[in-house]
């Protein structure tokens, strides 16, 4: 068969599609022509480059850094490029944030974490036409080494963090090239919600961000969030260590569920199965019984809750405190609230730039708190809610909307985003909660709230094996399953209380963000297991 015959046969077979196919072919031909043209042009340019480039040693793509040599070169941090450095010739390693070529010059914005500076390559006796072209073609997000002279600028550069200086590039080398097509644009990822819609500009949705977390984490907002989160952890450790607490490590693979049986992940454990720890509570309490007096731990906690809300994760970092007290569990509340206040104060005083950065994308009111922390009792909360028109029973647990409403009422009166609610009804707390000595309906338990959302739930624990058994039986709990727990109190146990907070939630609520996934570096929820 000749080609024509084939064609004819095809036409007969696909008469309906023929027109489309023709169009497609035409387009492809056009594309090929364009490509050829471009290549020819590129080749021509290449030729011209090869012809007369006096600056060819001052730019390019050097061989991959494989630790061939140890250069004794000092690299200056972008944040240190200040007017005091004006006139100096410096080396900088940074990412190309944006580049914009304009005739004989090319403007680059070089970024290092949340700092960026404007850089300029212009045709001169130090830089050739080809060098400018090369700089203009460096893909966004590539890592480059540049040498340049720091120069003061007359007009402030509003778009950069280093507003008073720019860098006049004399040498530029690409250390690591980024692929030309990025899955998301950094500018889009930091655009405040809502603003994009008005101006027809793109914003990036949560899932795209999380799917490409490596790039998303490079944004100024993410940088600020996780620097602040690290601060929370640091302040938590420092404050408690200063108070005489001991940091402990607890096992995450456990044989029995610590809090009831639900919500635990089962993992295979050789010939049997085990669970992932829901909370380090049992081990914290055992440390108290072992005379460690005051302990805290920072570690992952697992919850197999199939709830897809803005504040639930299946794995999060728990900051847990347990402490023996002398006579009243309020000693423990005071210790915990003081720790929280120290964290809030530390963040307010040391992380103001990070808070501002996050606020640019996610505006929120500054976090307000009182020192010492406000403590209200559950009965008062119920009365306040009833006054506001909510119908609820004395011993009913607070629903999430009621918690929010209560948060608003408290904020209105006391102007604080952080408070403690004390004396919960015994019926809504776990079996190990110590009952109130004066009223058997209530208990020595407390929740702490930030911006109307619960961040900590704690209580005085029953440290008497007999009472514990009684309470467990009252809750219809199989005594065999918690035998080890009860037994740990048989050999003398000091009165103690404690509680645990979620690091991600605290960061989220402190910054006034609306999704806990933003404050978890690689979040795990019922629908996400990667990256």
């Amino acid at each position: 068969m000749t080609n024509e015959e084939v064609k004819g046969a095809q036409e007969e077979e696909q008469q309906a599609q023929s027109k489309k196919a023709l169009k497609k072919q035409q387009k492809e031909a056009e594309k090929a022509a364009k490509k050829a043209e471009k290549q020819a042009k590129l080749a021509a340019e290449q030729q011209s480059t090869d012809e007369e480039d006096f600056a060819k040693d001052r730019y390019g793509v050097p061989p991959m850094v494989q630790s061939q040599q140890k250069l004794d070169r000092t690299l200056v941090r972008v944040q240190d490029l200040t007017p005091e450095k004006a006139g100096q010739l410096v080396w900088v390693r940074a990412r190309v944030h944006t580049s914009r070529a304009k005739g004989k010059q090319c403007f680059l914005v070089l970024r290092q974490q949340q700092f960026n500076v404007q850089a300029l390559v212009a045709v001169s006796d130090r830089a050739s036409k080809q060098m400018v072209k090369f700089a203009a073609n460096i893909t966004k997000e590539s890592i480059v080494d540049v040498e340049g002279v720091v120069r003061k600028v007359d007009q402030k550069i509003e778009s950069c963090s280093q507003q008073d200086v720019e860098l006049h590039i004399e040498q530029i080398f690409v250390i690591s090239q980024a692929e030309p097509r990025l899955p998301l644009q950094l500018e889009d990822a930091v655009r405040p919600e809502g603003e994009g819609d008005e101006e027809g500009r793109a914003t990036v949705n949560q899932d795209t961000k999380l799917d490409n977390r490596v790039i998303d984490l490079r944004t100024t907002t993410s940088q600020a969030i996780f620097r602040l989160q690290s601060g929370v952890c640091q302040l938590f450790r420092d404050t408690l260590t200063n108070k005489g607490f001991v940091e402990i490590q607890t096992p995450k693979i456990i044989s029995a569920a610590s809090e009831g049986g639900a919500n635990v992940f089962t993992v295979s454990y050789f010939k049997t199965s085990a669970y992932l720890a829901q909370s380090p509570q049992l081990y914290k309490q055992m440390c108290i019984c072992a005379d460690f007096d005051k302990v805290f731990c920072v570690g992952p906690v697992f919850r197999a809750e199939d709830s897809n809300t803005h504040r639930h994760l299946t794995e999060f970092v728990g900051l847990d405190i347990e402490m023996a007290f002398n006579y009243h569990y309020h000693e423990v509340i005071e210790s915990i609230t003081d720790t929280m206040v120290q964290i809030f104060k530390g963040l307010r005083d040391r992380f103001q730039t990070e808070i501002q950065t996050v606020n640019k994308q996610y505006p929120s009111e500054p976090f307000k708190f009182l020192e010492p922390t406000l403590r209200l009792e559950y009965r008062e909360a119920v009365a306040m809610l009833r006054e506001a028109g909510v119908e609820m029973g004395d011993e009913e647990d607070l629903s999430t909307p009621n918690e929010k409403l209560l948060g608003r009422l408290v904020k209105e009166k006391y102007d604080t985003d952080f408070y403690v609610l004390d004396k919960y009804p015994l019926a809504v707390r776990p079996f190990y909660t110590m009952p109130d000595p004066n009223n058997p309906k209530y208990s020595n338990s407390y929740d702490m709230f930030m911006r109307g959302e619960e961040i900590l739930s704690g209580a005085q624990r029953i440290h008497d094996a007999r009472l514990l058994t009684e309470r467990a039986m009252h809750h219809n709990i199989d005594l065999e399953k918690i035998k080890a727990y009860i037994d740990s109190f048989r050999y003398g146990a000091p009165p103690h209380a404690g509680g645990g907070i979620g690091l991600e939630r605290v960061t989220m609520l402190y910054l006034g963000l609306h999704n806990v996934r933003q404050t978890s570096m690689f979040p795990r929820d019922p629908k996400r297991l990667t990256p």
Partner: protein
Amino acid sequence: MPMYQVKPMSGGDIKIDLPTCMYKLPNIHAQNSGCGEHAHQNGEVDPAIRALEARQDEIMRRLYELKAAVDGLAKTVTTPDADLDATTIPQGGATSVFSGTANLDSLLGKDPGALRDIVINAHPARPPLSLLVLHSLLCQRYRVLSTVHVHSSIPAVPPPLLTCLGPRDAHSYTRQRFQLGFTLIWKDVPKTQMKFSVQSMCPIEGEGNIARFLYRLLAPEPRDPAAATLADSWVDTALFQMAEGGSKERAAVLRALNGTLGRSPWLAGAELSLADIVCACCVLQSGSAASAPPNVQKWLKSCENLGHFSRAHALLQ
């Protein structure tokens, strides 16, 4: 008893024909009728009569009591702060006006189950001294849970400001034990501000207005409009001319105070009142106490002698 006896004039058994058209009555001259008279003449009182008299007295007494009670009740119904009136009858001594336990329910409505918490936001640069004095008076009258907080808008406050409501109550861990909460928050506010019932009351601004509210929890307003206005006027004068005014205005207020205090020991009425509390605090705060005219000096001393100014004084030093 020796009495003469006469013989019967007629025979005892005369037959008289009685007409049948009349009733027949038994003989009323009983055999022992003379005996009663006899006893009476002797001055002896029948115990039955005595008991009767005692009962009558008792009934009369109870009637009077009942009358008094009804009168009191009528007064309560017709005038709203009458029961306060009853508990604050001056019993001699100036501070006695504020003593005794009053019924907060009648003043503020039924207890909603939550602690009635008065929240006062004040700037640490301008501590509201008069409110501290009133707090001290409130503590004398009610079981008050006093707490001091620092708001995050203020980096730090000097330690005396943290203890300006006195030491922590030993029972502060049970909020239900208290009738009234007094929560002082040091905060970056342009004006001293009070929040009480968020649902039914807007925030109250200005030390003077807050002082009036607190004072009304302590003592009844003078019924007389002129007296009430006089007290109000002194409060305004103190806060607007003394605390916020220039040196000339301050001097004028001191002169006016001196004149009034020359005629009467207290500014409004016969006892210490809100006018005295606010004015004295403003004089103390302005630092012109030492250079004040003699009547003012004397009056300041009297205020201090009542003992409620000690914490305000501690803040000034």
